[in-house]
Each structure stands twice: as C-alpha cells, then as structure tokens.
C-alpha cells in the first residue's frame, strides 16, 4: 500500500523542530510500524539524508523502550506498544502523523527520541523494597490473598514506556507511579516502606514537573498493558493515609 508519513524532525534538544512529510510507495500490511520506519530510514540513508531517530529494543512489547504518538494517540490506534503495531491497522492512502511523547519532563533528545530519566528518578524515590540478603525464607510463611496477588501482578506488568504521560491531557505520570505503589503496596514485602514509598514517589513526581491527575482516564486507555485507573485511587488513599498518620 501507499502511505504518507509526517514525522517530527528535530536535530537536537535546542532545535525548534518541524513536521516533515515522506511518501512510501510499497508498504506491506504485514510490516510492523517500526519496520516501516526502518525501510524509510534505509532509503533516507541511501539518499544521503539523516535517518529518523527513534527508540526501540525488544520489539516484542515487553521492554517499554519504544513509543510514538501516532495520529495524536500514544502507541497509535491499537492497545499495544508501537513495536507490536502493524501496518494492517492503516489503509492505503493514509497520511500518518508521527510525533514524540510530549511532556516538559520528557525533553526531546532528537527527532522521536525523548529522555525519560524522570521515571528512573521516581523509582529511585521509593519504587523498591529493602529485602535483607541471606537464604530465601520459606515461601508458604507469607500467605498472600489471591485477589491481592492478582492485582499486584496486574500492576507489575507496567513496562515504564511513558504512554500514560504522553496521552494525559495534563502530562501527569500518576498511572506509572500508581502502578508501582499498587504493585508493592499489595504485597507483604512492600509493607514496611509503604508510607515512605508513596510520600517519596509523589514528591519526586511533582518535583519532575509532571502534571496533576484530573481522573480523565486517557492514561489507562493508552496503556499497552491496561494498567487500571483504580491504581491511582490506591495511590491517593495511601498518600492521604500517610499524611493523616503524620508520616510526612
């Protein structure tokens, strides 16, 4: 099929950047979205142009490295990662707009590549448990209710891609932060640091300049892992609880 892509080109962080159009004549519907860009990049390289910079690693939807805003939607029209999106989701003759994640906390490095270091710093502010080393304790000594285990596992599937921030009209990173709070807060190993975790992570979230959640739900709709919105309600509950207990 024939398509036109309009891609955000920005040479470096201080460049102003603009949308640039490219026509592709021979796109197979079986190609993944990133393969389509690979083909375009080969052509650009042969023509002596600068290839389009974009991130990817596993290309199987598990690492969280890839991420493009396609036609205004984070990861494009299907609920999956950009690397798992295929050209069969588009039609012959389509004009496809491709842009980077947009958030003042995710500065553009080049073209479609953004710096998501802010997520790492949110994790460093509390997204862990402090487990003593030594021989592993007997697993059956720590019963976990099935429901909690399921919810914790669901939240743990967050791959840190940042689509929630890109999709949120407020540029909030609450879904990402809340996925960690829920994942660790529902398990026994997460209890000792439950209050300090939520206080530290929310503080860092705000310090990074992310926006405030207005409970719109675009994050959940865009999330390739379907992290549910109720994780954010859990985060709110944990934070207000920690404040009420005077832990701040």
């Amino acid at each position, binding site marked *: 099929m024939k398509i036109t892509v*309009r891609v*955000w080109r920005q040479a470096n962080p201080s460049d*102003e*950047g603009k*949308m640039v159009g490219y026509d592709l004549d021979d796109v197979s519907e079986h190609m993944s979205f990133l393969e389509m860009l690979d083909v375009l990049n080969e052509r650009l390289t042969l023509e002596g142009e600068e290839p389009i910079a974009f991130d990817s690693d596993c290309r199987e939807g598990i690492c969280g490295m890839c991420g493009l*805003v396609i*036609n*205004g*939607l984070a990861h494009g029209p299907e609920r999956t990662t950009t690397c798992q999106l295929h050209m069969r989701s588009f039609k012959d003759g389509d004009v496809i*707009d491709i*842009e980077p994640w*947009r*958030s*003042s*906390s995710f500065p*553009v490095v080049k073209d479609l590549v953004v710096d998501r270091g802010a997520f790492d710093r949110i994790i460093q502010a509390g997204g862990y448990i402090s487990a003593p080393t030594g021989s592993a304790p007997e697993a059956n000594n720590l019963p976990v209710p099935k429901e909690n285990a399921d919810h914790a596992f669901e939240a743990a599937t967050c791959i840190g891609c940042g689509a929630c921030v890109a*999709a949120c*009209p*407020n*540029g*909030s990173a609450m879904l990402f932060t809340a996925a960690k709070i829920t994942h660790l807060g529902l398990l026994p190993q997460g209890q000792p640091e439950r209050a300090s975790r*939520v*206080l530290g992570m*929310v*503080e860092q*979230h*705000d*310090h*990074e*300049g*992310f*926006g*405030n*959640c*207005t*409970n*719109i*739900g*675009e994050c959940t*709709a*865009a999330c390739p892992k379907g992290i549910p*919105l*109720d994780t*954010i*309600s*859990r*985060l*709110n*509950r*944990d*934070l*207000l*609880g*920690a*404040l009420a207990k005077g832990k*701040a």
Partner: protein
Amino acid sequence: MTKRVGARRSTVALKALMAVSGLIMVGYLLLHMYGNLKVFSGQVAFDEYSHHLRTIGEPLLPESGLLWIIRVVLLAAIIAHVYSAVVLTVRDRKATRTGSGPRYKSKQNKRGFQRSYASFTLRWGGVIIFLFIIFHLLNLTTNDIAPGGASASPYERVLNTFGEWYMVLVYTIALLAVGFHLRHGVWAAGMTLGANTSVKARRNLNVLAYALSGIITIGFLIPPYAILFGWVG
C-alpha cells in the same frame, strides 16, 4: 523541574482539598434545592422558610447566625476550590507546553481515546458557574438585579425573576454547567479520596455521579420552568 515541596503540598494533597471543598458545596446545593422546591407551598411558606433560615438557633445564635456560618463555610470552600483549581491548571499547562503551537501537531483524534465532554469542560464550566454565582447573588439575595421588579419578599423575587424567559434561559445554562461539572466532579472526588479500588466501586461512583448531577440539575430547574409556565402562585 519544579520546586521540591513536601507531600503535604503535593498535587495529590491539593486535589484532595479540591475534592472536599467540592463535596461541601454539593451538600449545600442539595439543601438549597430542597428549599427552592418550597415555592410550590406558596408565598407564606416560602417567605417563612427564608425568615426561618435567619432565625434558626436563636437565642443561642445571633440573628442570621446559622446563615452566616453557612456563608463563611461556603466562602472558604469556594476559595479553596478555586485556589487549588488555578494552581493545578497552571501546573498542568506547564507540564504539557513543549515548543511552540499545540502540544501535538496532528489534527487527528483531538479527543484522544475516550475523553468525555464533561471532563473536557470542567475548567471553563467552573468559570461559568463562578460567574453565575455572583450574578445569582446580585439577583436573588441582594436583588440589585431585579428583572420583573424588585421586592422585599423572596417569594416575589423568585416569581418576578422567572416570569422572564431570558432569566430562565440564564439559569438553565448555568445549571447545565453545574450538571456537567458534577458528572465528572463527583466521580473525580471519589477517585481522589481513594474510593475507587475495584470494578464495583467504579460502577457505584459513576452511578452516584450521574444521579447527583441529574437530581441537582433537574431539581433546581423545576421551579423556574413551573413559574415560567404559570403553574405557581
């Protein structure tokens, strides 16, 4: 990066302030709506009710004591609500402002995956409601704006006001704005205060939000339309 502040002054804490102040106002609206429906009991009952509001608690409270307590609480709630809304909105704009022009250049899918009309209009709707409250106080409390004629009787003020179709239109627009605001606002308050932790809780919160916004919008609009159509008095 923004200045580092403690969790007490975080976006989540500010949002909780917005939720609590909003719920206080919802509580007031329900009482107020109930009071308005007394126009159907006639002039004596309505004016007595208005008078009664000013004498409740006497002699323990001074005249209009309870009314003033309610006014102070409401004023505090409005200030807290508007303050948190403005601070958070400014922050959200900053978080999404990158380069020049709109955040995303694509003109496709401007409404994203699922954003609702009610959630879209929350901020401007809030501004409309705020302006309406000022107008409304000048109209029915101080009676500086008195279409259809001023009066010392609250009952007559209400009847004179809603005898004019354009006043009914103004109140209709304002109450639709209130309805949309509460459709998203009540649900959001539940989320913010940590009540949405299961699929069932989410359904209940949504039902509550629809019910409260529907009851308040319709309940407030019954008297104006009844008066316009001449069914009262």
